[in-house]
């Protein structure tokens, strides 16, 4: 599991290519200290805390909810979680760069609608897949262009495109639903790997998770993203192409949303304009719960995966226990408020005490001069 990516003054050097004196690294005390810090983060960082929380959640659910610990649960739970899990990966990167994308669910809906229309028109499945991915690219690129070249805030842009893409979906397919997809294909999308209960589609989902995990934690491009979220100006000064990076982040949310649109359509074997309505909020909730800072600058992929699975497990366990969705909304909301507000409160308190200390120091110095 990669460590939590946090941009801070001492780590800024680590984010840049390492010094050529690789042989001297063992003798360099600061490098040794840094490695020790990383090892500690591996077990106690925010991402790690979420993974422990996930394991605890699963344990509690398995012990308290009858029939939760079963192969069937694995299958149903993962099938439900896949759309959120997929979109949460690029969304985590977008939020880490200090932006947000609310148009993801609408992109998925537009993809689904297009898929239905093309299938009804007699297109072949491979061509449809290509067109769908292209739609994702275009939707993401439009968001990216408006945010980076025009310089509009992403919140405003993507609220706009949320409505725009959903509207286009309605234009494309209207109030029809297309459902006659090939049974072989739809049953593949709900099939499980052998007797494990793990959906076959999870293979693709794992590939997506690994891609974004490696991108964020093990590539120079990804290492620069938290820097962008932390301070755009500083990132520009050290040579990061801020605009370009953000643009491609939005394209990636678009493409993954299109893939989710395809998955959604075939899993429910129904192409409609209102597919995946509202999941953008579930995705952002999971991303924030997974330890990504809404202010940008920090977050980790393992944490986000854990965040998604915690919410999915709790909701599935509550449903299995016959508890109403109303309670579920309350629980999710409380979790989220807690996970977002607590770190912010801590930092506000820290900020205040530091400001007071600084003010006292200044006063003391001015008293000396006087």
């Amino acid at each position: 599991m990669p460590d939590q990516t946090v941009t801070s003054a001492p780590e800024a050097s680590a984010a840049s290519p390492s010094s050529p004196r690789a042989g001297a690294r063992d003798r360099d005390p600061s490098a040794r200290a840094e490695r020790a810090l990383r090892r500690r983060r591996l077990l106690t960082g925010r991402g790690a805390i979420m993974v422990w929380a996930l394991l605890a959640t699963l344990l509690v659910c398995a012990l308290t909810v009858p029939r939760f610990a079963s192969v069937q649960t694995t299958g149903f739970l993962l099938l439900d979680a896949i759309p959120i899990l997929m979109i949460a990966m690029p969304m985590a990167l977008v939020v880490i760069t200090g932006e947000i994308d609310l148009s993801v669910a609408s992109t998925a809906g537009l993809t689904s609608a297009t898929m239905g229309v093309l299938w009804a028109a007699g297109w072949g499945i491979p061509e449809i897949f290509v067109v769908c991915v292209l739609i994702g690219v275009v939707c993401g690129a439009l968001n990216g262009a408006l945010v980076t070249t025009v310089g509009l805030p992403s919140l405003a842009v993507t609220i706009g495109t949320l409505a725009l893409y959903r509207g286009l979906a309605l234009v494309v397919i209207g109030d029809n639903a297309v459902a006659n997809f090939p049974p072989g294909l739809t049953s593949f999308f709900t099939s499980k790997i052998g007797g494990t209960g793990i959906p076959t589609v999870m293979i693709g989902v794992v590939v997506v998770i690994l891609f974004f995990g490696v991108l964020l934690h093990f590539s120079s491009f990804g290492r620069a993203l938290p820097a962008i979220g932390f301070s755009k100006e500083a990132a520009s000064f050290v040579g990061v192409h801020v605009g370009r990076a953000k643009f491609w982040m939005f394209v990636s949310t678009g493409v993954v949303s299109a893939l989710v649109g395809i998955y959604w359509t075939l899993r429910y074997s129904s192409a409609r304009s209102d597919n995946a309505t509202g999941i953008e909020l579930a995705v952002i909730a999971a991303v924030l719960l997974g330890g990504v800072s809404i202010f940008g600058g920090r977050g980790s992929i393992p944490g986000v995966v854990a965040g998604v699975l915690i919410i999915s497990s709790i909701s599935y366990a509550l449903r299995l226990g016959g508890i109403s969705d109303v309670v579920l909304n309350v629980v999710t909301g409380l979790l989220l408020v807690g996970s977002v507000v607590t770190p912010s409160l801590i930092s506000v308190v820290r900020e205040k005490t530091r400001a007071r200390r600084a003010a006292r120091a200044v006063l003391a110095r001015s008293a000396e001069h006087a």
Partner: protein
Amino acid sequence: MEFPTYTRGRALRRAAAAVAALATVTLVASGCALTAASDDASSGSGSGGTESIAFVPKQLNNPYTDVVLGGGEAASKAIGYDYSVVGPLEASASSQVTFLNTLTQQGTNVIVIAANDPDAVGPALKEARDGGAKIVAFDSDTDPGSRDVFVSQTDAQAVAQIQIRQMSEQIGGQGDIAILSATANATNQNEWIDFIKEEVDTNPDYAGITIVSTVYGDDDDAKSFQEAQGLLQANPDLKGIISPTTVGIAATARYLSTSEYKGKVALTGLGLPNEMREFVKDGTVTAFALWDPAELGEVAAYAGQALVDGTITGEEGDTFTAGDLGDRTVGADGVVIVGPPTEFTADNIDDFDF
């Protein structure tokens, strides 16, 4: 970790981001209006060998559905089944699937479902049937291949004919009308709307009537209200609105009763007498129709029991007894008809309480 100096701009940006975050959180948390769910948690499959029956409505907290479920609950208690209600808070296509999955896992004997989308629930229902559950569709049909029987309020054509006839009587057989439906994919609403359009196109009595537009309020009160408002703004010559959904007709009536169109624009459709009473009394609405929703729930529960007992298999011609309501016969495609709709006017509306 942090830089101790902050410019005002950054502080503002941070504050804005915090506000955005909190707004998101509130949205997620509130999700839906927090009204108490109509049932208490049930333990799922009966441990003492009792059969279990679970109703999956299009959405929870819908006044019409609540009446149907009331009938279903009474009948389930009468036949000694474990009764439960599970369902989504919003009537979207795929939202019911996860509930069907958990019911499958709990080994529920009878699943009674009103489908938001006939196809989206298909695979989940197949899995439930593989697990031994009997499937009764009610109110809004699923794909006929994925259920045993479909309990229909009444013959779709009859429902459509009553609505267009009431409208025609009120506007003198002449003028533009519009339709305000539930969701764009609702199976039952779309079927009625198709029949209404067919009547208008083919029946010479309605030659003077034109359907100018069909809008969707998604069975959401506020959205239906706005759609009604929009209809009258966009079509100043509109003579009447047909709303074949209880949420839509109540919202439209509420809008009309406070607008200049009160008494000038006719409104018919399917509504609950208790919700429509004041609008009939104040002259906004002259006539509307509905069947007794509770009977729908009752017949669905008895049909489920008959399927479990093997009294019926869903074949055409099978007969079962629906408690006090008497015998019902399975028709073509496994459809069971509950009975003809009732027409409500100022004369008889006080005789009904649902």
